[in-house]
C-alpha cells in the first residue's frame, strides 16, 4: 500500500476483543444439553466471524473507492432483494430472510452498506446543495425507498435506523442545521399520527415501554426480566453460565437481541462497562477517521457508517436497560446472526480502509 498508512490498531483489536467476549456469553446463552459442538450456535458464530475476517482482510487491499463505482449496482441489488424478501414465507411473523440452501440472507443487512454508500456518492460533490436546495431531495428519496421496504417486512428497528444515518450525513454535507431541527420538531408533532399507523404489537411495545408493569406477562415481561437480570448481576456478575435469569429461561431472545442482559447478569458491571467502553472506542475511532479524511466521499461514508453502528449499539443496550422501547435491534458482533456479524465487521473494515488512504482523490 504505497500511499496508505497502517490500519487503525484500535479498530483492529477492539472488535476482536468484543467478539471474543461475545462468544463467551453467547455460549452461555445458547447452550443446550447434549448438543454436538458442530451444531451449536457458537460454532456457527465463529464460522461467520472467520469468514468476515477473511473478507475484511481481502477488502483492505483495495481502495475503498471501488464502492463508489459499485454504488448504484449495490443499491439496485439491495432494492431487488428487499422486494424479493417480502414474498418469502414469514418466519416468526416477519419476512426478513431469503433462504438459499441452508443459509439465510438478510437483505436489510445489505442495506446497511448500500444506503450509506449511495448517500455518500450522492453528496460527495463539494457544491452539493450549496446553490440548489432541491439537491437534498435525492438523498432523502434514496433513503425512503429502502426504509419503507424494510418497514414493510416488518422490521421497525432497522427501518428507523436510517434516519439518524441520513441526518448525520446531511449535516456533515452542509445541510443547514436549523432545517434538521425543524424536521425533528415536525417529526415529533407528527408522531401521534405515525403511532396510529404502527402495527398493534409495535404500539404495544411503546406503551409497555412507558409502563412495563401494565402487562407483566406479555410485552412487559421481557423488559422486566432484562432489568432484573442486569441489575442482579451486581459488580462482578454471577459468573459465566451461572446467571439464574439466563439459565432458567426467563429471558426471551437471549442469544440475539437481549444478549447484553446475559452479559450484565453473568459479567456484572465490570463486564458490561468494558463492553460499553469498547463500543464507544470504535465509535470514537470511526468519527476520528471521518474527521481526518481529506476527501468528501470517504468522510461522508465514514460518518454514515459510524452513526449506523453507534445507533445500533446505543439502541440495543438502552432497550435491555428499559431506557428505550423494545425494537428488533441486535447488538452487532455479539448477538447471534451470520448476516449481522459479517456486515458489521465488514463495515468496521471499511472505516479502517478509509483511514488507511489519506490522499485526496477528488
Amino acid at each position: 500500500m504505497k500511499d496508505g498508512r497502517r490500519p487503525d490498531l484500535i479498530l483492529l483489536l477492539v472488535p476482536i476483543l468484543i467478539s471474543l467476549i461475545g462468544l463467551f456469553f453467547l455460549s452461555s446463552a445458547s447452550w443446550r444439553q447434549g448438543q454436538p459442538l458442530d451444531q451449536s450456535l457458537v460454532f456457527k458464530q465463529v464460522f461467520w466471524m472467520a469468514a468476515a475476517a477473511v473478507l475484511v482482510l481481502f477488502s483492505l487491499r483495495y481502495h475503498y473507492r471501488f464502492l463508489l463505482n459499485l454504488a448504484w449496482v449495490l443499491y439496485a441489488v439491495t432494492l431487488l432483494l428487499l422486494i424479493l424478501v417480502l414474498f418469502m414465507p414469514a418466519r416468526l411473523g416477519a419476512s426478513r430472510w431469503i433462504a438459499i440452501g441452508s443459509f439465510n440472507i438478510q437483505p436489510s443487512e445489505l442495506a446497511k452498506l448500500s444506503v450509506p454508500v449511495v448517500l455518500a456518492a450522492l453528496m460527495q460533490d463539494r457544491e452539493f446543495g450549496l446553490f440548489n436546495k432541491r439537491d437534498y431531495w435525492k438523498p432523502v428519496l434514496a433513503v425512503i425507498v429502502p426504509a419503507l421496504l424494510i418497514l414493510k417486512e416488518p422490521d421497525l428497528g432497522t427501518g428507523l435506523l436510517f434516519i439518524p444515518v441520513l441526518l448525520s450525513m446531511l449535516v456533515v454535507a452542509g445541510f443547514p442545521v436549523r432545517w434538521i431541527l425543524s424536521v425533528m420538531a415536525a417529526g415529533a408533532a407528527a408522531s401521534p399520527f405515525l403511532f396510529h399507523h404502527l402495527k398493534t404489537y409495535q404500539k404495544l411495545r411503546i406503551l409497555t415501554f412507558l409502563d412495563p408493569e401494565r402487562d407483566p406477562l406479555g410485552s412487559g415481561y421481557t423488559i422486566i426480566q432484562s432489568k432484573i437480570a442486569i441489575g442482579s448481576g451486581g459488580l462482578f456478575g454471577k459468573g459465566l453460565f451461572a446467571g439464574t435469569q439466563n439459565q432458567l429461561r426467563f429471558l426471551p431472545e437471549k442469544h440475539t437481541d437481549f444478549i447484553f442482559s446475559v452479559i450484565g447478569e453473568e459479567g456484572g458491571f465490570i463486564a458490561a462497562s468494558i463492553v460499553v467502553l469498547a463500543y464507544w472506542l470504535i465509535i470514537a475511532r470511526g468519527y476520528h477517521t471521518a474527521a481526518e479524511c481529506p476527501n468528501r466521499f470517504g468522510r461522508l461514508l465514514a460518518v454514515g457508517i459510524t452513526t449506523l453502528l453507534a445507533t445500533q449499539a446505543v439502541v440495543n443496550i438502552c432497550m435491555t436497560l428499559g431506557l428505550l422501547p423494545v425494537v428488533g435491534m441486535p447488538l452487532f458482533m455479539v448477538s447471534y446472526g451470520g448476516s449481522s456479524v459479517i456486515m458489521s465487521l465488514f463495515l468496521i473494515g471499511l472505516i479502517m480502509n478509509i483511514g488507511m488512504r489519506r490522499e485526496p482523490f477528488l
Partner: protein
Amino acid sequence: MNKIRVLFLIFSLAFAWILTALFKMQVLDYSMYLEKSERNRIRPTVLEAPRGVIRDRTGRELVSNRLAFDCYAIPYKSGEETALRRLAPILKLSESKLLERYASRKRGALTPILLSNDVSPETAIRIEESAWDLPNVYIETRPIREYRLGEAAAHITGYIGAIGDEEYDHRRGFGFRFTDWLGRSGLERVYDGYLRGEHGVEQFEADSRGRLLRVLDVRERVQGRSLDLTIDQDLQRFTYELMKETPGAVVVMELEKGGILALVSSPSYDPNIFVRSRLEAQRIRQTLKDPLKPLLNRALIGEYPPGSTFKIISALAALQANAISGSTRFFCPGSFYLGGFRFGCWKKEGHGSQDLLEAIEHSCNVFFFNTGMKTGPDAIARMSRSFGLGELARLDLGMEGKGLVPDPKWKEKTFKEKWYAGETANFAIGQGHLLTTPLQMVRAAAVIATGGRVLHPYIVSRVEGVDISPSQVRKVRLDSADLALVRRGMERVVASDAGTGQKARSEDFAIAGKTGTAQAPNGEDHAWFIGYAPAGEPRVAIVVFAERGGMGGMVSAPIAGKIFGFMRELGYF
C-alpha cells in the same frame, strides 16, 4: 470538523447515560434486583384443559373427566430427608422406597419431582393438612379421563395415550405440549380436535422454595367440546354382556336416520388402563400382545364372507333382473352339479321343491345356486354395490374395511383369470371372494327394512350442541312387489318353525331376519344374523356376528332375539 465532533459528543453522551444507568442498576440498586431475581421466579404453570365429555343419547356421561391428585416435591437445599420420612407413611410407601424414588427422579435444581401419581383424595387432604411439616411437598390436580363403561364401550370411545416424541415435534408449533394426550382410537381419535380443549396458563411468582406468592395472571382453560352420541348406554351394556365371551361384533342401528344405538366388538379391553399407564404398564402390554387382538374393532374392520345372509340381496338381484319371479320353483335334492363339480346344500337330503319364500325361510343353497346362475354375476354385483357393499360406510368412528364385491372384470384384472361359472354359484350364497363387514351388513338389512334407503350410519349426533347428523340419504330403486316378497321371506325365517332363525323369535312382536353360516378356511364357520324389528313397521336393524361361532341360527339368532327383547323393554317399539 466541528460537526463531526458534535455528532461524536451526542453519542458519547448517550454512552455516558448508559454507563450511569448501568451503575445505578448494578451497584446502587443491586440488592433490590437481587432480591427480585431470587423472589421473582415467575413460573408459568399450565392449567391442563379437561377433554370434552361424551354422552349417550339419554344425556348420561359415557366418558368424562375426574380429578387426579399428584404429589410433588420441590428439591430443597437441606432437610429433605426428614420431610420425606414424614411423608412416606401418608403415601403408604416405605421410607427407603420413597427416598429412592426421590433420588432417582430428581432432574434439575428447580424441577419438581413427581413422588406419587393419582393418590386418593384422602391422601391428598392429609398432605395439604401437613403443609407445615412438609414444606416442599404439594399436591397438584389435573383432569384425568374416565371411561365409565370400560370394556363395554371400548371400541366406541377408544382411548387416549401420551404424545410421542415424533408426534410432539410435528405438533409443537400448533400449541401442543409434551405432556399432552392424543386420542388413539375410536371417538377419542376421530374427534380429537374437538375433544381437546385449550390449556390455560397461570403465572405466579414463586420464591426460591417454590411457594406461591401471588398470582400474576391467569388465562382460563377451556374445556374441550362435548359429544352427544346416538348410543344407548343400557343397550350397549346389555349387548356387551351377551357378547363378551364370544369373539365377534354386534351393531344395532335405528332406521329413522341411521344412528347407531349399540356397537360391540369382542373381545374388548378396558380403555382406562391407558390413562394410568404407569401403574397399568403390564396390563397394557398384555392387551397389546393378546393374539385375539382385543383392540381391533371387528364391527368396522373385520371383513368376512357373509354366507347365507347375502341371499336376500341375490334374491332381489334375481327378481330385479326378472331371472325369477315369486312363483318360480326349483327342486333341491341336496346338491347341485355344475361343470363336474358338486355344490352341496346344507341339508343333505335336500329341501324338495321350493319357491322363493320357502327358499329364504329354509336358507336353501341349491335354490340360490339356480337363481344365481340365471341372474349372472354382474347383476348380483350391481345389486350388492347399490346396497353399499364393497364401499366404506363412512361411520365417524375410525378405520373401516371396504369389503369386496367380486365380478368377472375384477377377477380378470386382479388374478388375470377368467370367471368360472361355479363362482357365480358361490357368489349367490354369499361365499367365494365376497367379503363384507358387520357394519355393511346391518346397513344392508336397513335397506330392506326401510324400503330402499341406504342410510349413512353415524354415532355422533351433536358436537357441543350443534347437530351434525347426516342429512342426505341415498336411495335404491326397488320394485315394491319384489321387496315385499323378500320381506315376507325374512319374516318367515323367524316366525316359522322351519325357519333357520326361529331362535330369535319373540312372543310379543314380529322380527324379520336372515341367518348365515359362512364357511371360512382353516376353522369353524362364522355365525351371522341380520334382521330388523318390528317386522311390520321396522324401527331398528341389527347384525350379530360371531367369529368362528358356528351356525348362525344357533349362535347369532338367539342373541339378536334377546337384544330385540331388551329394546322392547326400553321402549323402542
